[in-house]
């Protein structure tokens, strides 16, 4: 049941408990408890809103920073990853396989601001060997939601 609950609220965190109970064929209380448990276990980590900021007037730029790192003895990548992730400007951070080690997504108001953040706060860190900054130009799909040019297909009103 947990996975089905998660698939439901992953797409629509505003869905009400009553509808969920009906659609899953379970008791409202049972589902509420299950959700509460998953919140406590940090399986559910938050209820955010998908926003296409490009359609608003607010200035916002997103950049992907690739970092090459020297892992620390006894710590691997954990210590530096935790340290970088504490910056408010960092929205996501992943350890990667392949040509670089850590991918950091940074949100800022302007490119200049992001560039300054990278050169002042990230690049000088001891174990950071190099940084490579890529700015996001246009968001086509985010969290499974297509942001651009969604077409509407019409079915006929009545078919056998």
């Amino acid at each position, binding site marked *: 049941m947990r996975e*089905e609950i998660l*698939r*439901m609220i992953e797409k629509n965190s505003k869905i009400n408990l009553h*509808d969920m109970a*009906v*659609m*899953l*064929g379970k008791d409202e209380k049972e589902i509420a408890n299950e959700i509460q448990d998953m919140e406590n276990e940090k399986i559910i980590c938050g209820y955010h809103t998908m926003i296409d900021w490009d359609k608003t007037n607010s200035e916002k730029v997103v950049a992907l920073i690739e970092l090459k790192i020297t892992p620390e003895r006894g710590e691997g990548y954990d210590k530096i990853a935790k340290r970088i992730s504490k910056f408010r400007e960092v929205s996501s951070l992943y350890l990667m396989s392949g040509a670089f080690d850590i991918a950091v997504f940074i949100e800022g108001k302007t490119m200049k601001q992001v560039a300054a953040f990278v050169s002042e706060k990230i690049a000088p860190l001891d174990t950071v060997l190099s940084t490579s900054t890529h700015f996001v130009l246009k968001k086509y799909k985010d969290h499974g939601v297509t942001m651009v040019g969604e077409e509407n*297909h019409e*079915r*006929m*009103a*009545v*078919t*056998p």
Partner: protein
Amino acid sequence: MRNPLSDKVVDIKPSGIRKFFDLVSEIPDAISLGVGEPDFDTPWRVREEGIYSLEKGRTFYTANAGLIELRTEISKYLEKKIHVSYDPAKEIVVTVGGSEGIDLALRAMLNPGDEVIIPQPCFVSYIPCTLMADGVPVTIPLKEENQFRLTKEELLAAVTDKTKVLVLSYPNNPTGAVMTKEDLEAIRDVVVEKDLFVISDEIYSELIYNGEHISIASLEGMRERTIVINGFSKAFAMTGWRMGYAVGPRLIMEQITKIHQFAIMCAPTTGQYAAIEALKNCEEDVQLMRESYNQRRKFLLNEFEKIGMKCFEPLGAFYAFPNITAFGLTSDEFANRLLKEEKVAVVPGTAFGDSGEGFLRVSYAYSIEELRNAMERIGRFVHRL
């Protein structure tokens, strides 16, 4: 000028769905719960494979029975799903939708005057296709008290010396009914005893909400007596691609292939390549769609209960078949007034046979928001009655 028309064709009644479709077309802002196809798009990887086949210039005929690679995938799929093995080379034909398979099977098996037993309510093409194949349709009105399943007694009462074929269609359109293994075994006993054949339309086999789909072909003694019709439309949300298939014993499939060869040549090549991808890599897509239909099904049944509309629990396909006899209107009157007064289109049960009188077919291949909106209107309508 002489009459240019065939009496046989002229005598066939036009589809009740068509009549209703024309009515709905006059009300462009109506909300419809009348559609018999998925609301999901075909999974992108399937569409992409179709596009790629065009880019590669795969625009020629295939073998009459379809690409051998596709037939092999169909064979593997059926082995896994219904535990019956069919030879890709001789026992599988890829058709233009399940509908073509129904037509082919009837034409391949019927001699003039042979009787075909058709339990109703059912899909709209069985009777016309039987008539066009010079067969004689014999209908069995299925009962709500049996959850619209066919019983042994009903079947026995309909069998005569001339009966040759039984058409079975489970999970059922329009009722959403499903037959259990025990139900089918009882039918099998009659079919074997009376030396009949079965055309089993299993197009909704992936959309079942209480366990595994059972095909009558998988029961002992039935493989040689059954043509199974299935396809990609409902399982993989591919209605517009028109991709289906018929499988059965070689003796019958040879003749089916012959008609298909002369009438159709082969199913569309682009769709065949896309269908291979669907069978190979889309099981998870099917599962997610099934989960979503099941949630909507439960939502809809709960809404019926709230407004006091009686409805037996459909366990397959994506239709509910509520009973409206308590409201004192015929199915036609109910559907017409609902359309005019609340602008909601549902299909009167009578479009699927006389025994659909007193019922409506309500499709839940719609989003929860659409279902909620439509059910609010239906609730308003019912309270006024």
